[in-house]
């Protein structure tokens, strides 16, 4: 995991080992690999239940078979809906037995349903990856079990 920002945008690089490159839905029983950056939209959003009605969680979701990552917001398990994209973009490269994926977004937030980020902020972040060849999708995933501190240098 690496992170950087340039005042205008913030970048997360996720790298993980994966011996199987699942970059497309090759069959009716196949799933693609995937990764996500998770952020509380505000305060004490619960991570493992993917937020709550009052405290949503925003995720920037990347998949190798989709053109670009996109932003979703969840207010509890199974409630994710697409949210304002706010410039979420990214790219993934497979090599040397693993994925390296960069997901970025503009700082600040243009709408209330996504995470606000700004230089000098003391926030929280979490990450999730999905192993396609293991049938992982939706809640079946590897996720950081707790929020990690996110300090955005001012």
């Amino acid at each position, binding site marked *: 995991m690496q992170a950087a920002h340039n005042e205008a945008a913030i970048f997360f690089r996720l790298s993980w080992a994966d011996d199987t490159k699942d970059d497309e*839905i090759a*069959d*009716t*029983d196949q799933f693609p690999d995937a990764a996500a950056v998770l952020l509380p939209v505000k305060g004490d959003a619960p991570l493992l239940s993917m937020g709550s009605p009052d405290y949503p969680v925003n995720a920037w979701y990347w998949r190798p078979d989709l053109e670009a990552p996109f932003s979703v917001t969840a207010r509890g398990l*199974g409630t*994710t809906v697409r949210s304002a994209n706010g410039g979420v973009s990214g790219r993934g490269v497979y090599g040397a037995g693993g994925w390296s994926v960069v997901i970025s977004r503009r700082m600040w937030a243009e709408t209330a349903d996504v995470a606000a980020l700004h230089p000098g902020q003391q926030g929280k972040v979490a990450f999730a990856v999905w192993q396609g060849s293991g049938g992982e*999708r*939706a*809640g079946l995933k590897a996720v950081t079990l707790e929020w990690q501190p996110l300090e955005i240098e001012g």
Partner: protein
Amino acid sequence: MPVQPPPVKRQLAAVFDMNKCLGCQTCTIACKTLWTDEEGMEYMWWNIVSTMPGEGTPRGWQKLSGGFQDGEPRPSRLPKLSEFGHAWEFNYEDVLYGGQGMNQHLQPKTGDDNWGPLWDEDQASGAYPNSYFFYLQMICMHCTNPACLAACPRQAIYKRVDDGIVLIDEERCSGYRFCMEACPYKRIYFNQAKKVSQKCILCYPRIEQGVAPACFRQCPGRVRFIGFLDDEESAVHKLVKVWKVAIPLHPEFGTEPNMYYVPPLSPPLFDDNGDVIEGSERIPRQYLESLFGPDVNRVLDTLRTEMAKTRRGEKSEMLDTLIAYEWKSMFGGFTRDPGTLKRPV
């Protein structure tokens, strides 16, 4: 906690009279041309008529499990494309127009496939002269307790309150396919182009206009009855609720399907001298019990009693209903001519 069925006010149901089916697949093509002719849907057969005993489609689906046991979900697995059967494209250009007709034979472009949705069509079981087969009509069962709906973590599947039709909201569907795994009848297909799950919609846009679903209306064998289960005037109600000669397929799957079947009667067996064995049946009852449960015995006996009545010259309203002298009697009021509908532009 056992899964609770979603509430409905009324339920549409269907009856398939297996004794009348010609195996012509007109129903299959009616659905194909109306609903599944777009990219990503090539391999889909929301309606299919399988030859039984046979593997059906996807291959061997009856052994894949899913559904509920004692109210709890039973695990299953996702079928592969090769188990459904690829949508074959043939090398017509080469063989017919490309001057290769003498050295290439007509074959699927995917090469040597060894399975397709109707691979074992019309293949009989049992030894001559006592061989037998029959046809099984399959669409989504629009279950009262749909395993597909219970399995979806995105609540993308819903059961309509006014008619009990089970639909997938493609806007909400993320293509996770928990539904496809959970459906014990394996009636859900995955669209690789749109990355969403799709299945029979019971032609709800036609139903809403009073028109019977395409696979029902087009059936030349008058096999398919449709109507509201609580509509006492409908043939469906009479066959299922009053005379009880239409029963669900694999009731043990626990989803309470709303498609009912009049099970197949058999011709008698021949003995070694080629003489008819009176009172015998070609299709083993044990096999029919494996499909419909032990209740199938009661139904077959009822049908035989009723047939004996008509042979004595008595009237049978039940058999008249099954024969369906007037096609409109089959559709529970959904008799509007589809030709009068306006096509959406």
